[in-house]
């Protein structure tokens, strides 16, 4: 096993708030999104479709870390859990944290797995959705 690339600074970020985003669930947001994915279900005029959490509300590979990381990145996939319906008029707040680092030797050399968690709550403080995503940095 090569030397760990997880620094003390990186460990210091574990379970701390990395960033926070807020979305007002507006008519136009729902319409633009459902038109873009071509899902004509009329239910989504009033209700946030679950795939908005995996699409608009996901940060994909574009997440910025407050520390230096290996330069190349692969999307290691993600999982989402849904707890409550989000509706037109709600305000959703997502709080993102790094919850784990893993390291592995593989085909790409030394690989750093950064596992991030985002929890989404509504304006009443109710947990709406939780996401865990993995980035592979090498």
């Amino acid at each position: 096993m090569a030397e760990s690339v997880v620094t003390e600074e990186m460990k210091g970020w574990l379970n701390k708030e990395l960033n926070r985003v807020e979305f007002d669930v507006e008519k136009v947001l729902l319409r633009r999104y459902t038109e873009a994915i071509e899902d004509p279900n009329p239910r989504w005029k009033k209700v946030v479709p679950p795939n908005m959490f995996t699409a608009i509300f996901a940060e994909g590979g574009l997440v910025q870390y407050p520390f230096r990381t290996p330069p190349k990145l692969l999307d290691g996939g993600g999982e989402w859990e849904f707890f409550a319906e989000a509706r037109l008029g709600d305000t959703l707040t997502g709080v993102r944290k790094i919850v784990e680092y893993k390291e592995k030797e593989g085909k790409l050399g030394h690989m750093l797995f950064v596992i991030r968690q985002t929890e989404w709550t509504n304006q009443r403080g109710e947990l709406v959705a939780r996401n865990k995503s993995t980035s592979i940095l090498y």
Partner: protein
Amino acid sequence: MSKQLYFEDVKEGTEIPTIIKNPTTMQLVKFAGASEDFNPIHYDKDKALADGLPGVIAHGRLKNAFLIQVLTDWIGDEGWLKKIAIQHRGMDQPRFLASSKEDALSSLHTPRRSVSVSRISFSSSTIRTFYPGITLAGTIVSSPFHHE
């Protein structure tokens, strides 16, 4: 939309209805705008080629949306998607969809009880036409039931 699915309707081996998607470059641009994912590999062919890609590629997050639509269409308006895990195993180009395979693991709540779908695969490997679609098909392959 579709008729309501109930727990009793689902058995091991039940096929999840297929939906067809035609992700054109226009759809990728609309999705980039809607999702604010402006990575140029999704709309700038020169940049995509310079990065060693075969051309512009579909957003992984757009494919996430497609996979989840398969499930939300299937479970109906009273159904509840509880959990889903997605990994991307390949890339897709609009119009020329080469091989891709994606797996989604999920559990859903149909009226009355939960259903656990262990694997939904997404394969576009057979489609190579001028107006290709992505075919999404799902099959429940093992122990689909767990009780709340």
